[in-house]
């Protein structure tokens, strides 16, 4: 039975980004390190386990950046092959996930750079223009409609569509933060951006997401492509 999500949320589950996931991530890192050790000792077939552990989340990142299933799958495959080739140079300074998602991110960025200018315009923000400084104005907080009720599955779908419709720099940072459960430093490493830029961009992306979701819910329209003026 689907859970109803009202704005006076009665859910018992508490969301906290950092502490809940730390243990899981540490255990994942240990497992990854163990598999990598096996591969480097000659058991190349163990790489299949590493692929199975990361392929879905890598695909999520690639899909949200490239907005095209075939391109995303090709990018993920390319990233895995590159990672395998460079595995001997992996130094355990960061987790395998951080190292690998940086490869995925770079492959996708290269693919985006090849696309016509209309599609890459939004990606210019990737270079960090105008994002290094502090957030200039405190945005006005959204007024939440008091009578809004929505089923959780439907709410998830709206949020998913909203992120999928965002420009690559924002969609990717939200994916790394929420789906890959990365902290600011890891995101900075993956995206090759200064920490301040990461914080600012993530903040902007979350505000944009909230605004877009509220508009979609407020209008009662779940159609993708609605409220495009809110996107960069």
């Amino acid at each position, binding site marked *: 039975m689907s859970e109803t*999500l009202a*704005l006076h*949320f009665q859910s018992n589950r508490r*969301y906290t980004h950092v502490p809940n996931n730390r243990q899981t991530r540490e255990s994942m890192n240990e497992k990854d390190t163990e598999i990598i050790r096996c591969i480097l000792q000659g058991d*190349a077939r163990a790489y299949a386990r590493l692929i*199975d552990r990361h*392929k879905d989340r890598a695909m999520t990142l690639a899909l949200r950046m490239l907005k095209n299933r075939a391109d995303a799958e090709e990018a993920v495959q390319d990233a895995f092959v590159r990672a395998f080739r460079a595995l001997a140079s992996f130094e355990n300074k960061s987790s395998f996930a951080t190292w690998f998602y940086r490869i995925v991110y770079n492959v996708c960025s290269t693919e985006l750079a090849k696309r016509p200018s209309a599609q890459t315009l939004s990606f210019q923000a990737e270079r960090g223009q105008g994002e290094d400084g502090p957030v200039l104005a405190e945005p006005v907080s959204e007024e939440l409609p008091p009578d809004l009720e929505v089923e959780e599955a439907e709410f*998830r779908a709206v949020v998913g569509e909203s992120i999928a419709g965002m420009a690559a720099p924002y969609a990717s940072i939200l994916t790394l933060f929420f789906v890959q459960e990365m902290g600011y430093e890891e995101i900075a490493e993956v995206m090759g951006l200064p920490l301040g830029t990461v914080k600012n961009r993530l903040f902007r992306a*979350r505000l944009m997401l*909230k605004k877009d979701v509220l508009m979609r819910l407020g209008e009662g329209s779940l159609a993708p492509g609605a409220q495009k003026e809110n996107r960069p």
Partner: protein
Amino acid sequence: MNHLTEEELLDYVDGRASQSAMRTAEEHCRRCAHCRQRAEFERSLSRAASVAPPTQLSEHFTERVMRASLAERRTPRFAWLLHNSASFIAMAAVLGILAAVGSLTGLGADAGPESASPYLRIFTLWSTASESAASGLSRAMQEMVKPVVSQTGSVFGSVFWIGVAALLLFGFADRLRMKFISTR
């Protein structure tokens, strides 16, 4: 009452705020329905955004990546052969031509001076010319080379040309295989 700023709210929801800031935000939310509602909405948004959408990777994705990765890994071994194939071919060609000429001219089949091969004639001329200086040495070389060439000429010719053909075929087949793997 001052509401929580967006930054304070997100830090509170994420659990990133300092202990004192967390306490302040929690206390504020207890008294302020508006901020409590905003915090709950942010939590729901975060939970929903944390759910990875179904990616529907194509069937046998892992196997395909494994094949491509392992093929990449093998490349240096095959590349070594391919990179050296020019030297192998050149060496084999020179030896093969020498051996084939030797076998076709029947070097050593008849010991008589009339039917001797060009090799033998050259050796004979050379040895005659240098007889006064180093007759002993040239005769020894002539004696050493003549039976070897005559007995193994045809065998060498066949072996080397088969080797050349096999090497070319091997290189071609490997390139085809790599192309096949990379396009799948």
